[in-house]
């Protein structure tokens, strides 16, 4: 067991150049809150650590051309506190604020959460429902990948070996389209989600739901869209029959497993409970 070599590039280009020259030899690391744990457990053995914390502006958050653009290096603490994120993607701000503990939120980054591709990654369901895209930058420039196409399985993404995740963007939709996030963990802090649900929708004056998007975390190999549930909710007014039908649909759409954290049947059931709460948050919020 030899210690990995270490580089802390000062620019993004420098980082990309190192990676391009020896893609197998470098593993990006930002907060290290996933990678270091995996290394200790013997699940990762990088030959070199490419530390991204020295790149200026890598975590900047901007609004430009009607898009909110978040640098991959933005910490969860920054996301949770940022006014623009709170306005345009309240579900994302809330999810970021619930991750781990203060220490984890101060170190862990959006880019790391995405690249790590855990089905329970808390920032991902919110990004699904706001229609986010992920910017991958490699030697040939930047390509934007829809968030739904980014993770291909647990721990797997479409990121190429010479790519870095550099940013995430989604429409700055203001308070017009609202989003909400609910999650369930074993304890109040420092608990990986057993189930998480994000919902986004526009609520018309008469209560009709439009542009409904629902995403589920920790109930499938990747975060998934619940399209049948969206269909039930689209154009409907929340309550009674609609709520029941939506909960039934979401329970059908979830594909959970039983593990140490929760049973399959419980997870499925909770998708319904959390869906109700998330939609209720959106509907109640539209009234105030």
């Amino acid at each position: 067991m030899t210690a990995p070599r270490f580089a802390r590039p000062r620019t993004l280009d420098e980082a990309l150049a190192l990676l391009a020259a020896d893609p197998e030899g470098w593993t990006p690391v930002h907060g290290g809150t996933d990678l270091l744990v995996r290394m200790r457990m013997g699940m990762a053995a990088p030959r070199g650590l490419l530390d991204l914390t020295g790149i200026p502006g890598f975590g900047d958050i901007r609004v430009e051309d009607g898009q909110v653009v978040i640098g991959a290096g933005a910490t969860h603490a920054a996301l949770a506190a940022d006014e623009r994120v709170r306005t345009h993607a309240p579900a994302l701000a809330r999810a970021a604020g619930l991750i781990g503990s203060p220490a984890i939120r101060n170190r862990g980054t959006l880019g790391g959460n995405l690249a790590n591709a855990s089905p329970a990654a808390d920032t991902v369901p919110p990004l699904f429902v706001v229609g986010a895209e992920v910017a991958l930058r490699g030697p040939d420039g930047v390509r934007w990948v829809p968030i739904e196409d980014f993770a291909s399985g647990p721990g797997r993404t479409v990121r190429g070996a010479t790519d870095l995740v550099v940013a995430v963007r989604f429409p700055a939709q203001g308070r017009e389209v609202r989003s909400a996030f609910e999650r369930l963990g074993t304890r109040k802090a420092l608990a990986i989600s057993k189930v998480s649900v994000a919902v986004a929708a526009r609520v018309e004056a008469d209560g009709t739901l439009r542009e409904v998007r629902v995403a589920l975390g920790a109930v499938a190999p990747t975060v998934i869209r619940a399209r049948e549930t969206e269909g039930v909710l689209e154009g409907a007014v929340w309550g009674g029959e609609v709520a029941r039908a939506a909960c039934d649909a979401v329970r059908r759409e979830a594909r959970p497993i039983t593990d140490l954290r929760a049973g399959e049947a419980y997870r499925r059931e909770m998708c319904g409970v959390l869906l109700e709460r998330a939609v209720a948050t959106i509907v109640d919020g539209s009234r105030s």
Partner: protein
Amino acid sequence: MMIGEKDKDRPWLLGRPEPRVDGLGKVTGEARFTDDLDEVGQVWGVVLRAAHPHARIVSLDVEEARLAPGVVAVLTARDIPGNPFVGGVVQDQPVLAGTAGAGGGAGHDLDRVRMLGDGVALVAAETEAQARDALGLIRVGYEPLPVVTDPREALRPESPLVHDRGNLVVHHGVRHGDPAVGFEYAHRVYERAYATPRIEHAYLEPECVIARPVEGGGVEVVGSIQNLFSTRRAVASVLGVPLNRVRIRHAVLGGSFGGKDDVMTVMACRAALLARATGRPVKMVNTREESMLESYKRHPYFLDYRAGVDRDGNLCAMRMDIVADAGAYASMSPFVTYRSVVQAAGPYRCPHVWTDVRAAYTNNPYTGAMRGFGSPQVNFAIECLVDEIAEDQGLDPLTYRRRIVFRDGDVTPTGQRLAGHRVSLDEVLARIGDASGFVDKWWRYRAAREAPAAFRRGIGVACSYRGVSLGAEGVDAAATFVQVQPDGSVIVSSGVTDMGQGAQTAVAQCAAEVLGVPLDRVVFLNTDTSRIPDSGPTVASRGTIMGGSAAADAAAQVRARMLEVAADLLGQPVKNLVIREGLVGTGGAEGSFVPSRLTFADLAGECFRRGVALAALGWFRAPPTSWHEETGQGIAYFTYVYGANVAEVVVDSGTGRVRVEEFWSVHDCGRVVNRLGAEGQVHGGVAMGLGYGLLEEFEVEQGVPKASNFDEYLIPTAMDVPRMHVEFVENPDPAGRLGQKSLGEPTNEIAAPAVVNAIANATGRRIREIPATLEQVLIGRRLTRSGLRGSEVARGGEASCKVRGEEG
């Protein structure tokens, strides 16, 4: 000289919220834990552990490992010069398992591994990495044996044997009255089955020792060791040397909770063997994964309770059958189950009580001492049961308990009359009822159950009585050495160890109280087995009463000699003299104090010049106890403490999540020695108790633990701990030299039933198996467990799951 009543009645320093003497060092990082220490020339020791939970070792080849880079020594069971077995009660645990012919004791063959945590070989190397690499070169041939994981199955005749002499570790019985007669009077009979989980101590600091060879064939060991004298006994026996050749000390300990006993003894023995074999200092540090795998846990219990209630609502008969999972080795099981059998029926009057508690060997991780020591399990059962009976009787659970709890002069199920101290449980319950507004809330929350609600409130109570110290388990005496320096500063050393619980502050405060000096004049030295007499283990919440009483005894001896000199200097009779706040003066019976110009420091200097002995060894022997093995009758403990907990919770009807919002604890622990320390004990004890009730289970499947670190074994975080209200009912007890008793474990033993009873108040559903996880609360069972506890066949999570959402 004995401490007069004067000392007991008017303490000047006891009860004050003195900051702990080790606090600053711990927060600044100055405190040195064992792993912070290194010896010149030290090598690293590591352990090869078993590959099967139960197997015979048919071959063991260490030759290749011996030749590996950096390796200094590889040891197996054959290399043990003395007794290869250790064990506080039954010597059944091999320091290393070996091949046939490596030795063995009666009924405990050495050529077997009985749990995954067992050690098979030791490697010492120049670096830790070299040592660990060499482990991979050791070849062990195993012949797997059938595994038994359910203690109830282990007691059946057809069960595989974990030890050849049989799987029954111990059987305690209490035979008080005749339940057959008692049940005849029963108007209602309740039969309930309860189960409690195996849990991990979760001390922050994993196990660590450094052993150094010393002349004459002995060793010196420093480590994170709770019970230094037990460790010394084992190390001497394993090396085959007399006790005075083995010196055991502890560095600053990062928590223990009963957990750094046997596992540390084994580690110390292994390090000592390596130190003798290599002639060099040896350091061993468990990773967290090794710690979780190897260390013993709290016993899982299966408890069958049967209680009869007469027409007036009084308990008229109780019959209890309890089985504890001892895991692979006996460890403290005989004593843990002793406490269970004594306290199983709770603090309630009942004329006919028969209790059986058995502990059985299995191939699970072994179980031993953990804060509470056999009480959290039985308290959970009896407190849930009594709560249910109360509700059935149409009474709130607090009022019902106040009707049936022990009062002065009542007789316990072991036939012991509670006398000589205040039996204050009714007072304790009254206080907690007032503080929490229990009765009113309980009825309100119960009424609210009728209407649908997304979130439901509930309030629950639990109470206990607890025997102080070891009781009839064993010899109960302790030593503290007090030395006054010529400048009036004081050094206290004790046979009682501080593992983070605050013993050093409490024991030092007892000495300071009697000497009359401020606490900051006292330095407390870590325990050293070669410099203080064997004081027994620091367990059973006995530190403050035993170590503190011995400190008071030592201080009183020194003070008496000093007052003789003071009398001479001040021209006053000794009986008028008082020392307080470092000043010598005169005092009256009403507690008045008039200081003179003579300071304690000057007096100490003068005593020194006159050749007065300024040091004394204090000794405290507990009052007598007794036990009749066949009937389980006798004076089980020399005195008791009393406590109650109330929990207020909010249950999420949709998810089953329980939030504990508010928590009340009221304890009568005799005289409070240090209010801050006492409150700290309560906060910590409750937090641990909530983990027991709501979160924790160290799950083991076919002998293989499922969790190996704190990412999967979840204990409460600060965010899960409720607002706490702590009160003390102080009835100084003549059993303690300064009126003090015990607190550490009482704080931890009833939080779980208080919470579970609160959940019942909120939902109307009784949970009889903890932890009350989200799934347990919502649907009454856990889906994550593929098998039920032990080796029962998996029922599987995919089976029908009827859960309800909001309207549930």
